[in-house]
């Protein structure tokens, strides 16, 4: 069986959890020997891991016929894909797009990020999808999140193959219940016209059923999993400059992640104790507001901001923490507590995050229950048995949450659609 996947991000160049999840899932599914995956992303960087699947860059797919000599194609595209693929795709240009802005290879440029003209990029992505769908042979289409739904739908309309959409987040999660109508429209259109919907948690599944009016039978939950840590990351030591316990918030500092509840809990704890410090790692639109809030509360002497962390820095931060807190207001899944648990860091998560449905060896509170959160932080930092138990049991638990199993569930859905 062959699957054509549309994604937006792919490690190592990721901005959020979407890339990590698509990578893990594809890798887990690659364990099934009879399954091949072609993964389309807007803009590959050339250093992606292609050992278990083929990556096609939308920005390397021609939509306007240009006479490109072999040497030029080779020098420009070699690090992304076999240049021969370029010519195969060029033979499948299906309409006259000369009015579009394209480069000397006849390709559209993509940022691969979340720019202001994101709607235009999703539209362009869908144009490119038409070429890819005509070039390659596949049995099922799999689209990750709303940015890729139009592309998936286009591929479906060209080939008539069944389409699965994978909901990693909905607009309701990102906006705390005040969705952007255009984005909602794209999401709804994708869900209405696809053949099956996969959600990363029961929480998301409920949102899809209730707010997007999808029938129950069409929506299935497949919980995310986590990639085992590489030996290089396992080897990272704790960078501890302070004798106090370190409590960490790690993620985008935005409304969805509930950073203000973390600050409130920190205020309670700092007022009562002197052996606990707090770190807010990451960046986001609410960062300045949070810095002001910390100053107003008078806890800045024990509350630190790191700014955006990338790659290895994330794990250095985690390994140096004693508690990880994720007070998300609405988190479709939330992979980062699983990563914290892999590093042996006890985690506190909100009931409003999807991963709380499958995790047992964590402390769960409501995101608004600042007292409970403060209490849990205090407990982990004060009672060694609590920290030790969560550390050991949490690691055992999370090591058993594997992408292969998630991959098998997705495969069952594919099989049912055939």
């Amino acid at each position, binding site marked *: 069986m062959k699957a054509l996947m549309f994604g937006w991000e792919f490690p190592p160049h990721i901005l959020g959890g979407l890339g990590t999840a698509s990578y893990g899932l594809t890798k887990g599914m690659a364990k099934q020997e009879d399954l091949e995956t072609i993964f389309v992303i807007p803009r590959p960087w050339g250093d992606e891991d292609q050992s278990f699947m083929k990556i096609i860059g939308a920005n390397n797919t021609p939509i306007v016929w240009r006479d490109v000599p072999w040497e030029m194609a080779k020098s420009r595209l070699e690090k992304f894909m076999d240049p021969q693929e370029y010519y195969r795709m060029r033979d499948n240009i299906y309409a006259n797009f000369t009015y579009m802005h394209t480069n000397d290879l006849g390709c559209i440029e993509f940022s691969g990020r979340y720019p202001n003209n994101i709607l235009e990029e999703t539209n362009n992505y869908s144009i490119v999808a038409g070429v890819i769908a005509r070039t390659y042979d596949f049995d099922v289409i799999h689209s990750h999140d709303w940015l890729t739904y139009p592309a998936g739908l286009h591929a479906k309309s060209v080939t008539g193959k069944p389409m699965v959409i994978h909901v990693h987040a909905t607009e309701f999660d990102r906006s705390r219940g005040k969705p952007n109508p255009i984005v909602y429209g794209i999401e709804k259109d994708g869900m209405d016209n696809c053949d099956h919907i996969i959600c990363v948690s029961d929480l998301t599944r409920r949102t899809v059923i209730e707010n997007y009016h999808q029938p129950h039978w069409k929506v299935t939950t497949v919980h995310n999993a986590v990639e085992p840590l590489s030996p290089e990351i396992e080897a990272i030591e704790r960078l501890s400059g302070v004798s106090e316990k370190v409590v960490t918030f790690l993620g985008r500092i935005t409304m969805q992640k509930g950073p203000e509840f973390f600050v409130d809990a920190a205020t309670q704890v700092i007022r009562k104790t002197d052996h606990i410090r707090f770190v807010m790692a990451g960046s986001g639109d609410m960062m300045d507001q949070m810095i002001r809030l910390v100053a107003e509360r008078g806890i800045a002497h024990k509350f630190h901001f790191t700014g955006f962390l990338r790659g290895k820095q994330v794990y250095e931060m985690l390994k140096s923490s004693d508690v990880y807190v994720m007070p998300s207001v609405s988190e479709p899944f939330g992979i980062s507590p699983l990563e914290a648990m892999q590093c042996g860091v006890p985690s506190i998560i909100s009931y409003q995050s999807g991963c709380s449905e499958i995790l047992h*060896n964590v402390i*769960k509170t409501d995101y608004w229950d600042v007292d409970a959160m403060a*209490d849990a932080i205090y*407990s982990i930092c*004060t*009672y*060694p048995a*609590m920290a*030790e138990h969560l550390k050991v049991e949490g690691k055992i638990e999370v090591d058993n949450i594997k992408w292969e199993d998630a991959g098998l569930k997705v495969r069952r859905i594919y099989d049912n659609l055939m």
Partner: protein
Amino acid sequence: MKTICIYFQLHQPFRLKRYRFFNIGRDHYYFDDYANEDILQQIASRSFIPANRMLLDLVNQYKGKFKVAFSVSGVALEQLEIYAPEVIDGFRELTKTGNVEFLTETYAHSLASLFDPEEFRNQVKHHSERIEMLFEQKPTVIRNTELIYSDEIAEMVYEMGYSKMITEGAKHILGWKSPNYVYQSAAQPQLKLLLKNSRFSDDIAYRFSNYSWNEYPLTAEKFISWIAGAAPEEEVVNLFLNYETLGNLQPSHTGIFEFFKALPRFAFEKGIGFATPSEALDSHEPIGTITVPNPISWTDEERDLSAWLGNKLQQSALKTLYEVGERVRLCTDRRLKQDWLYLQTSDHFHYMSTKHFGSGQSPFSPYLSPYDAFNNYMNVLSDFVGRVKAQYPDTVDNEELNALLTTIHNQEMEIKRLQLELKKVIGSNEEMLVEKNKKMQKNR
């Protein structure tokens, strides 16, 4: 003749209220009165009160041939006295018939037997005095919290003057042996043991209303025929049940009360009698010894201590608690001593069990997760330990403190003795003075 020995356990813990870490050092009241009252009154009206009434009817109806025994923990007795005194009255009426026996156990339904022998002895003494005061009978049979038993506990119990004990007929201990006999402890042969028949007890406690059980529905007639069908040499069948089985764990609509009402009739038809634990133990000689190197209990499939000591959280909480035991016993503050008892109740540790993840945690737990339970308990315990430490300076160790307290105590006694003597002297002097005056008046 075969006899059935029925014993009911009744226990309710003092549940803790939500106690956050900011309360430590400020708030010294730990208990959730509302929940405790609510739960106890519900169970009393569903189970204890109708069950007491039914048992009294049965005892009267069969004129002394139907007998049962109870083991009511001290903390449960206290709650019954506050929230449902009619249950205590019911027990008193049952006692008056002379066919109901009360057993003794640890006052706080605690795990002291595993951690603190002195505390264990104190609590058993406390409990047996309480039973004597309430029901005017001195218990002779002991059962430990949750039927926890081991060779070590056997010796301890015997040294305390008990020669009759009740415990679990755990399969891994019995092996091929049958629980339907009286046994003796390997560690202390003078201690006679009565073992729970797990199969028959669980038929009533767990399987009674299970539709998917192939023996459903269980009638008294069928149940008695099973007992009668056992080998004729097997003479004592021990049904040890939670009292809440009647009406709460098995709600009345399952027919549990009717089942019990019919039980004696069918038993007598087959020539099976009833006995209290002490009668059963007195009238039978032990036929073999039981060796239990590692403690057993009547909980879960494993019948061991893993429900209370299975993870690091529970072990650490218990360790922290019993570390202050010696110091608490030196204190005289009554509220402190009361809290000390209530905090030892085994339920607090059961709520911290992580054994049941997946199949759902303990159905009795008032907490959302074992971590919540640990968190809350440790906060309370931190405050409690703080209070204990505030009683006497930390720098004095227990032995020294004990010596000092003894000296103070002795000196107090000495002062009292001297005062008394002084009074006597003054008194006799006064008398002499009075007599002298009289004499002088006479002489005049």
